[in-house]
């Protein structure tokens, strides 16, 4: 077993907090791991990445070779595209769709989301939306790692234990917010993946997820939603046009 992850984002978005959670889970599980990160000048609002590797055998290079990355986990949609040449065939991109715009030539949102949706193996989550629902917009990094967590080789409870350790110093409230963000991200990521596997278009799944009550998102309903939308072409527009949020388990009713 060997897992190679490129964590991507913009300086200040908290990718090293994601690394903290995975590093500790890897050590806890008895794996070898190495995690290279960026310090110094590049942290000042620039593109940052961290190469995180864990395996059940010795790891040599701190950097992931091109063609060996299993996962690009990005807290920012433009940054998700920056490292895709490292992905092995079959590798995944898990990305936030919340843009961090601090450059003049930032691409149009539709163009960017279209490029991401064109990737074969991609999970897209609206991290700002879910982090707000969890209680703090800064918890987007935990939404992202939650969305990627089913691809990691650790129990959800172990990962949540290290989210707790990471924020313990900052008080119970922040621990709860960040754990909630993780859970919302995990549910949304799974829902996205299952609905897309069942035939729903990626950008439609993303739109639907924004409309669902975040706490109600249940990956087990993803197939039913995909099937209902396939059966009734106007369903998605009706759902998106309805008042307020929609409960995930309302799918039979709407249908």
């Amino acid at each position, binding site marked *: 077993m060997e897992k190679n992850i490129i964590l991507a984002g913009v*300086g200040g978005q908290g990718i090293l907090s994601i690394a903290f959670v995975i590093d*500790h889970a890897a050590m806890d599980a008895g794996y070898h791991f*190495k*995690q*290279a990160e960026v310090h110094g000048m590049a942290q*000042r609002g620039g593109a940052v990445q961290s190469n995180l590797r864990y395996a059940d055998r010795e790891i*040599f290079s701190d950097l992931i070779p091109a063609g060996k990355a299993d996962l690009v986990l990005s807290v920012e949609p433009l940054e998700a595209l920056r490292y895709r040449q490292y992905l*092995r065939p079959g590798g995944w991109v898990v990305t936030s769709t919340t843009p961090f715009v601090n450059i003049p030539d930032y691409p149009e949102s539709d163009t960017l989301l279209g490029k991401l949706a064109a990737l074969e193996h991609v999970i897209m989550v609206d991290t700002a939306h879910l982090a707000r629902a969890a209680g703090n917009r800064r918890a987007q990094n935990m939404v992202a790692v939650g969305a990627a967590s089913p691809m990691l080789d650790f129990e959800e409870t172990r990962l949540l234990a290290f989210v707790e350790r990471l924020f313990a110093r900052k008080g119970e409230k922040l621990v709860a917010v960040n754990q909630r963000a993780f859970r919302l991200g995990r549910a949304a990521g799974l829902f996205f993946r299952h609905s897309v596997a069942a035939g729903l278009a990626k950008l439609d799944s993303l739109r639907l997820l924004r409309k669902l009550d975040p706490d109600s998102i249940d990956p087990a309903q993803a197939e039913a939603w995909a099937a209902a939308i396939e059966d009734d072409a106007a369903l998605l527009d009706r759902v998106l046009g309805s008042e307020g949020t929609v409960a995930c388990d309302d799918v039979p009713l709407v249908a």
Partner: protein
Amino acid sequence: MNKEILLGDEAVGLGAIHAGLSGVYGYPGTPSTEIFEFIEQRTRKGGNVHAFWSTNEKVAYEEALGMSWAGKRSLVCMKHVGLNVAADAFMNSAITGTNGGLVLAVADDPGMHSSQNEQDSRYFAEFALIPCLEPGDQQECYDMIFDAFELSEALRVPVMVRLVTRIAHSRTAVDTREPREQNELKPDKQIRKWTLIPVNARVQYAGLTEKQPELVQRAEESPANALDLRGGTGVIACGLAGNYLFENLEPDHDYSVLTIRQYPIPPEKVRALLDRVDDLLILEDGYPLVENRVRGLFGLEGVHIRGRMTGEVPRTGELNPDIVRKALRLEPLPTACDAAGDLSNRPPALCKGCPHTDSFRALNDALEGFDDPQVFSDIGCYALAALPPLEAVHSCVAMGASIGMAAGAAHAGYSPAVAAIGDSTFSHGGITPLMSAVQQGVNLNVLVVDNSTVGMTGTQRSMSTGTTLDKIILGTGVSEDHFRVIEPIPRNHEQNVAVLQEELAFDGPSVVVARRPCIEAQKKRAH
């Protein structure tokens, strides 16, 4: 034995503490900063380790040497270009020799992630005739600090531990040992050893050269220099480069491999490798030091040597597993997709609300009306003012160089000669050139952007900020009439431009201090 998750830098720091460290010295500089910071934080609540940032690397080195003179173990850490600043003390400390163990941890920056150059500190170790250890992973960062102190006390010379960015800033779990006691206070009063007047220095230097065979012998015998003889194609992999090599090889590969992690280069081991192979690839993260030494001026008969000098490895830049794969003539691994060619870059930038933005906006406006004015700048966050949208500064060379270069340009008749420098860089290297310029009455304008911290490296303590800075500036002889303090906030823009214009109009040395704390530092202090 415990396990801790540590950066390479932190592993060096913890190794030093556990090896009986009494004092750590340094000046912040990426990628070395976290060595000092780790020790400072770990020993804050006890442990009796002196940990206080120094004014610059030369001061740090001299303090470390004094600690060694007193019999205790000291660690001095800096980035590669910091060793240029410390070079006077460093070179001569090899001549005096040491008493308590003295270890120099220097972090090079191949690929220039956060630096002006990618100079290779191994040359400095060779130049000074001292041993250099080059850890290949974070565990070795920890372990080699013990070896370095032992070596220093056995040979009575300083020992360099050379890191590179990729090892300094990568984390893994490190096994730690039982801490060793600190040394007793035991000053070395051999006056002729420490007093390098020529009559003594000649004796000391001869003594240093006489130690060289033992340095070589220790490198030959060191398990850090491992020779694994297999087939007729050979690789020498130095330090971290070994990781990129083994990343690309199967365990049952047929290469003969020499890994070098302790210098001087062990000639017998190199000879044994050369006797086995007819094709030799040399991998080192930095300059082609080993490659050039092994090849010599004219190459070796019967062995084809490949590396940075022959183009199989790029002449400049950081190594990575892909470069090494190509140099091994292995096929690239298949990938899911090609690089996105048209992706917008996201360069680093000054933070939102940064005082430097207001300072340089004011400077830009004050300089309007001059024909394409050039501003000499320095090392710090404000070097980012070189980029759009500000494009306010036009040089960045060495710590303190802004003032010296502006003075030189003024000597040549260039006007306005403007230098921009931060408060910490000013204390590091700006005081002496200012003193020179003021004493010479040079027509130059210095803008000191005083944000009260060392911003770029993570908001360490600045030595000269606030009233201390003001007193130093006035102490160089700047006239009180031409020493001005402004507060760089948007609301003050017009009056700040006016102050700068007045000083630009003055024919003589003037200093304007733009004073407002770094917003990052304020955020950190609030936490």
